[in-house]
């Protein structure tokens, strides 16, 4: 292990973010948005292509607020409000685990809540990596559970 990898990149201030949530996002699901997503992901099931029901990964990104262009970072990503200031800035997708409770259909109004459940450091093949783990909970407005997700983001 090299000297850089041995450094602890996670200060107490960073770790204090574990357990924090951001403002829930309210999302009205439209048939047109489902159709756009289904075309872009090359779905084959007519139910998705007609927009009768959303594919399982349809909500990717919907947990984030819609940010005006001047507030985007130089890399094009939004300045995530639910993210501590990390010493590693480059972002990579990590992975996702989802559990489905109810299909998503046009006209649904969903409430999406995101909470940081873990922040940890790991040594990658050539450099240290910081993993930020989010718990994402999707319900209807009356509180019926639609989907639970664990999502990890990697800073390198």
């Amino acid at each position, binding site marked *: 292990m090299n000297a850089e990898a041995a450094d602890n990149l996670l200060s107490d201030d960073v770790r204090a973010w574990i357990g924090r949530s951001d403002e829930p996002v309210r999302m009205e699901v439209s048939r047109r948005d489902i159709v756009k997503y289904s075309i872009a*992901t*090359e779905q084959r099931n007519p139910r998705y292509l007609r927009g009768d029901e959303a594919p399982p990964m349809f909500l990717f990104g919907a947990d984030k607020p819609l940010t005006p262009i001047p507030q985007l970072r130089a*890399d*094009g990503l939004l300045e995530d409000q639910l993210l501590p200031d990390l010493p590693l800035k480059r972002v*990579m997708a990590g992975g996702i*685990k989802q559990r489905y409770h109810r299909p998503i259909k046009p006209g649904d109004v969903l409430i999406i809540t995101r909470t940081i459940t873990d922040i940890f450091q790991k040594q990658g093949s050539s450099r240290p990596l910081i993993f930020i783990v989010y718990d994402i909970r999707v319900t209807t407005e009356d509180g019926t559970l639609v989907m639970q997700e664990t999502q990890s983001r990697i800073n390198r």
Partner: protein
Amino acid sequence: MPKLSELKPGDALPERQHLATNVSLFLYNAAVWNAHRIHYDEPYTTDVENHPGVIIDGPLQGDWLSQVVLDWLEDSGQLLEFEYTNRRASILGETLTAGGSVKAIDGTQVVVELFIRNEAGDITTPGQALVQLADGA
């Protein structure tokens, strides 16, 4: 469409090849409202973020994995759980193969192992799904 009575661990699901293009990546990133420049700005991607080329979105590959299961199931069952890990980046221009196989069967629930494989034969994105097959399937 899988028949529960005929399923056994190791059975392969139909594979599908995906060749992303600038246009398909543009549409995907517009649909999920993602402006990360590594998905469309090649000089930025190579010079600033040091990737070998424009990056195919990790969650797009995740979606392709979910389709391996959904297209196999047709209407004979339901996806209960799905997960994947983006293990290494895939570069625009690579043809990716999405596939999977039956890992375990417990009553009417089936665990399916999934993969995205690149042209070099490396698994870039492993995944897993838990499905509920309909009674009588």
